[in-house]
């Protein structure tokens, strides 16, 4: 362009410039803040639609964790005898399982919802501009209602089991944030990859199935450390849900279930790395979403 010099200065007042972005693109937090209403509205839509379409509605959110807990407690607690290994009674084992199931089901659900979220919104993406990060984020947060309902069940089971209420419980929101961060980090990767490679939809159910056994849902993670030693435990902690679930259990059951903090640190580190790399990958990939989707 051979624009005269004064004109160039005049352009400094312009509100917005659209130009090709090269290389790594940072996350624009100002813009995300401006679009916060859209984020809540999309989450609200997902929640509304989910409960409107299902005949049993909210009952699903109650039945799913509760029935899974019953089955796990019978199969792993009684049949496999996990509960006796740690000298727990049957009731405490039920609480332990449910405290693991809640974050796990939130994570699994978020992974499924968010990986499909961009492809499911292809119409919006090709017709309107908004920060694309909102889509997987709102898909993850829409699972929070199920999670909240699950917490109520958890408190009920705790009353029934007669476990003592810990002050640690106040830390639950912190660990929920960690669970959200883990789910969102994976969601960023999977949703962006799914736009380009539709195999993701085959991979997700597989990860969910494997992950249930590779995470300490039906057993306390201390069993792994006692049986296989520290090296294996660090490898085990590379699974971000290990840290999340251990943290949850600690809040609910207290001192005896204090996480092995170095392992917990590994999990948190993995979550942070996935989150940052996921955001950068997403920002890079989003330039072509509208063209490819």
């Amino acid at each position, binding site marked *: *362009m051979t*624009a005269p010099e004064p004109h160039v200065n*005049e*352009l400094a*007042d*312009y*509100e*917005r*410039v*659209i*130009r*090709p*972005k090269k290389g790594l693109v940072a996350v624009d937090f100002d813009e995300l803040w401006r679009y916060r*209403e*859209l984020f809540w*509205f999309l989450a609200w*839509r997902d929640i*509304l*639609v989910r409960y*409107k*379409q299902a005949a049993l509605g909210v009952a699903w959110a109650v039945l799913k964790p509760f029935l899974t807990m019953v089955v796990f407690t019978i199969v792993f607690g009684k049949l496999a005898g996990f509960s006796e290994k740690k000298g727990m009674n049957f009731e405490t084992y039920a609480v332990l399982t449910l405290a693991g199931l809640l974050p796990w089901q939130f994570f699994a659900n978020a992974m499924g919802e968010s990986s499909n979220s961009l492809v499911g919104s292809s*119409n*919006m*993406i*090709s*017709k*309107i*501009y*908004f920060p694309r990060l909102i889509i997987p984020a709102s898909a993850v947060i829409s699972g929070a209602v199920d999670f909240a309902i699950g917490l109520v069940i958890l408190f009920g089971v705790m009353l029934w089991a007669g476990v003592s209420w810990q002050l640690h419980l106040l830390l639950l929101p912190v660990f929920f944030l960690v669970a959200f961060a883990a789910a969102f980090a994976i969601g960023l990767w999977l949703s962006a990859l799914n736009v*380009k*490679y*539709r*195999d993701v939809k085959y991979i997700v159910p597989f990860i969910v199935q494997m992950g249930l056994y590779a995470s300490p849902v039906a057993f306390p993670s201390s069993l792994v450390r006692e049986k296989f030693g520290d090296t294996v435990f660090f490898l085990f902690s590379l699974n971000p849900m290990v840290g999340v679930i251990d943290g949850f259990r600690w809040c609910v059951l207290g001192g005896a279930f204090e996480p092995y903090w170095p392992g917990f640190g590994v999990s948190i580190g993995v979550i942070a790395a996935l989150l940052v790399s996921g955001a950068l990958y997403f920002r890079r990939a989003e*330039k*072509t979403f*509208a*063209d*490819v989707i």
Partner: protein
Amino acid sequence: MSKPIISVRSISKQYRLGMAKSQDTLRDQLSHWAKSLGKPHEAANESFWALRDVSFDVQPGEVIGIIGRNGAGKSTLLKVLSQITEPTEGEIYLRGRLASLLEVGTGFHQELTGRENIFLNGVILGMTKAEVRAKFDEIVEFAEVGKFLDTPVKRYSSGMYVRLAFAVAAHLEPEILVVDEVLAVGDAAFQNKCLGKMQDVAKNCGRTVLFVSHNMAAVQALCGRIIHMAGGKLIGDGSPETQINAYLGEIKKPRTDTAVPLGKIIECRQLEFNPNPVVSGQPLEFTLELGTKQRTQLIAVAILIYSAFGQRVAILDLRTTAGQFPIEPGQPFRCTGRIKNFPLVEGDYRVGLYMQCSEYDGDYHDLASLTVSAATKEGELAPYAAHFRGLVELDCELKF
């Protein structure tokens, strides 16, 4: 002259061909990589420019029509302006809030009620919740759906659905409004209402509007200036009369490109009329050939005939009771037909296609043009002028 509200500087947009048949699964991508190992980078050959070096300025309050044939780059320009897709080169400076309306009802959810969709769609289009609430009654009144506010929109008639969707969009209050062919929906009465609303927005509210349309009458009525595009380039910029005439001249010439893309997969290889010009009332034959980049099903095809000013006159419905047409790269869709007495009044007509395949559907405009010449009838009075006679020539016997 005040500072331009939009300044488009040398914008180009390159698409990689084969993006549509993209390496859909990881396996395809891996085999693609394996094949390209050791070969020179061939991406440059497989690309085309949807926009090439487009520059223009828009002053605040201007209402600009963008016209051009299918594939001229109009929609890509709007997508780049609304930040849906990124330009490959060049810069755009915007000095105001821009809202784009590329489709009516983006983000509507079938399961939600009218009321819920008004809020959802308003926020998606860039309004705040407070703004939607303030305009809620106006929107409901404009859409004429008052009684059905709490009914899920899946039970709406298509007319109601479109009215509600447009009503939300019409109450956007950005400084710059970008609109793509959305007036082509709804019934005639509602279309007029929408045109009125657009006029109101532009003239009385002093807003800047960029408006893509194939309806020359609407463009002429609304716009003070017209940008004429062809082949991704800006080829004309000026008063409506000159640009519309230039465009109508352009579409009379046969297209030089061999295949016109109809969306991502299908392309129109041939759409011809014989004879062309045809004499009014005489037989007319047509040939249509559609190719494809990947295997799919053609669910419906119709040839659309428009008047020079963009009013739809007739369609030729090519569906059959035999069902869908399978189509794949080596096996194009071909259809020929014959109309016994072509009944249109002399003049120039524009021809497009409606095409629905398994992946998507859409209207595609100005793929061909058709000239009808006057029939010479002996022993009758000289006919009235063509514009006086309307569009259709009726054959009738008189008794007195």
